[in-house]
């Protein structure tokens, strides 16, 4: 190694050191502590008992109550992901060819709802979807329905509400990817007999995959950790992992809450890996 290379490596390490330090102190260490808590029994007086055990994890895997909730959490994540992908891609596809200026304004407009806090937005949905909410009142007045529709405290309400929050992130992410695809590629595809559908499948979609992947990761991770909308619109029975973690912690079962956090983390990691494996965004860089 030459002296210059050494100096360069030192310099890049020096630049890396502060964020590395912050992430070790405030992320890696707490995560280790959390894991430590998760492998202990619960205690009524302490944070956890002295006894090391896998019982928390075994409980989550073997108890059908927890399994249902894990399943539901995955289902909700997948539903939101699918909805965001379809609507997000379609919106981005329309926005991408516009002038940068028009695109910027429309994306800002799309992100406007994000300026309202999650709590306020969830209450907004309550006033719309409730038994005496706007939707039911209008439908009843119009004679379309006899009895009010049950829309709150359902899976659909939660999924729909979360989708509306996540959609802008997906659109922005995909839109940027689409807008940077050189129009030459699409023309090259057409010059090689690809019809519009083939051009999309074989050229536009793969070239936009980095944007799709980052959008999907963002949306999935955010939907896993969403809390307010789930509690307010899902009610006491539509529980997801996050609400269960909160409940356990609130009833001082810290080790169980910690173990569930790790299950959630595992789900997140597995799904992220799956998304990256299927979309292979790195292929755009021409490395297989």
């Amino acid at each position, binding site marked *: 190694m030459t002296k210059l290379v050494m100096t360069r490596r030192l310099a890049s390490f020096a630049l890396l050191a502060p964020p590395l330090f912050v992430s070790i102190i405030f992320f890696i260490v707490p995560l280790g502590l959390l894991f430590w808590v998760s492998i202990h029994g619960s205690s009524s007086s302490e944070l956890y008992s002295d006894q090391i055990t896998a019982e928390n994890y075994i409980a989550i895997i073997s108890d059908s109550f927890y399994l249902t909730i894990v399943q539901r959490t995955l289902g909700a994540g997948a539903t939101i992901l699918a909805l965001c992908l379809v609507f997000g891609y379609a919106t981005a596809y329309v926005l991408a060819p516009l002038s940068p200026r028009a695109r910027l304004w429309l994306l800002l407009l799309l992100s406007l709802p994000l300026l309202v806090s999650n709590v306020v937005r969830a209450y907004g949905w309550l006033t719309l979807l409730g038994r005496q909410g706007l939707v039911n009142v209008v439908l009843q007045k119009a004679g379309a329905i006899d009895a009010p529709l049950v829309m709150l405290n359902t899976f659909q309400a939660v999924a729909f509400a979360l989708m509306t929050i996540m959609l802008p992130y997906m659109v922005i992410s995909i839109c940027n990817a689409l807008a940077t695809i*050189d129009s*030459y*590629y699409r*023309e*090259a*595809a*057409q*010059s*090689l*007999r*690809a*019809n*519009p559908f*083939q*051009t999309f499948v*074989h*050229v536009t979609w*793969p*070239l936009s995959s980095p944007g799709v992947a980052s959008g999907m990761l963002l949306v999935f991770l955010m939907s896993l950790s969403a809390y307010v909308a789930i509690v307010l619109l899902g009610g006491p029975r539509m529980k997801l992992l996050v609400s269960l973690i909160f409940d356990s912690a609130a009833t001082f079962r810290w080790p169980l809450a910690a173990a569930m956090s790790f299950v959630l983390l595992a789900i997140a990691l597995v799904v992220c890996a799956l998304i990256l494996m299927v979309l292979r965004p790195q*292929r*755009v*860089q*021409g*490395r*297989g």
Partner: protein
Amino acid sequence: MINQSNRPDVRFENVRKTYGKATAVRDLSLSIPQGSFFSLLGPSGCGKTTTLRLIAGFEVPDSGDVFIRDQRVTDVAPYKRDFAMVFQNFALFPHLNVAENVAFGLRMSGVPKAERAAAVAAALDLVKLGNFADRYPKQLSGGQQQRVAIARAIVMKPAVLLLDEPLGALDKNLRESMQVELRSLQRKLGITTVFVTHDQEEALTMSDQIAVMRDGVVEQLGAPREIYERPATEFVATFLGASNLIDVVAVAAEADQTLVEAPCGRFTIPGRHGPGTRLRVSIRPERVALAKAEANAAIPATVRDVVYRGMTAHITLDANGLPLMAFVQNSAEAAIDWQPGEAASIAFPTGSLGVLAQGQA
């Protein structure tokens, strides 16, 4: 020219294309003969690229018609047209390797896999990239990417091959060797080729026919030699290399020649022109015959400046107030020994003079 018949592979009939107020192509009528290497030459904004894109269908004409092999394609979508194209920046798909890039068109048109593989291998061999099938575009040099782009186009066996300044992105040495290679490949395959370039030397080197374009109009169409030696307009005369432009008045016509009068003296130009007609003629500097001063020279001149360039010398002359440029060869018979201030005698060989179209001055 191999395989060339009179049947045109591409035809334009009164094609007009405007962008807002700007006219890119105006009332263009053009026939590109089968098997020929046809160049669209002109400065940027002359409409040459638009013309190419009209053949591809990436642009649709405002009026007029485009034909490929006698089929009217004016409103046919690009992917249904029988052409292939090499783009200026090659436009190789970054997510596909070399073989997949070359196979792309065959795959889209539903050619079976086995047949595809054979055709791809043959095309890659043709451009000498047989060992690069598994590489990705990013792992290739500019010249190799260029070859992949050519292989990807010719594997389709299209009626017309469109080349949009494909050599512009390469450095000078590579460009010159690619010119030769591309031309010999084109001859070997006998594929009708339309080549867009702003480089006059490139157009002269490669083409069977050149259309010199300016402001959306073809100023002159012809073989490289014709275009260079007998430019029809002042624009063509000056765009393709240096030219001496001389204003003359016809004195007397005889057979198919005309004696004309210019400030520098009298000489003969080709063609019959009535006495008194005002004309502008052009002559290439290398065609000006320069000799040591003679007593009764038709056109006497004074050497103003000599620029020695090794193989040639560029000599600036003054012929009775008319500035002229002459290029002389450095050869065994006549070494360059001109000095500024020296008196000289010049002549314009009749066959080397071109009469420029009126109204172009």
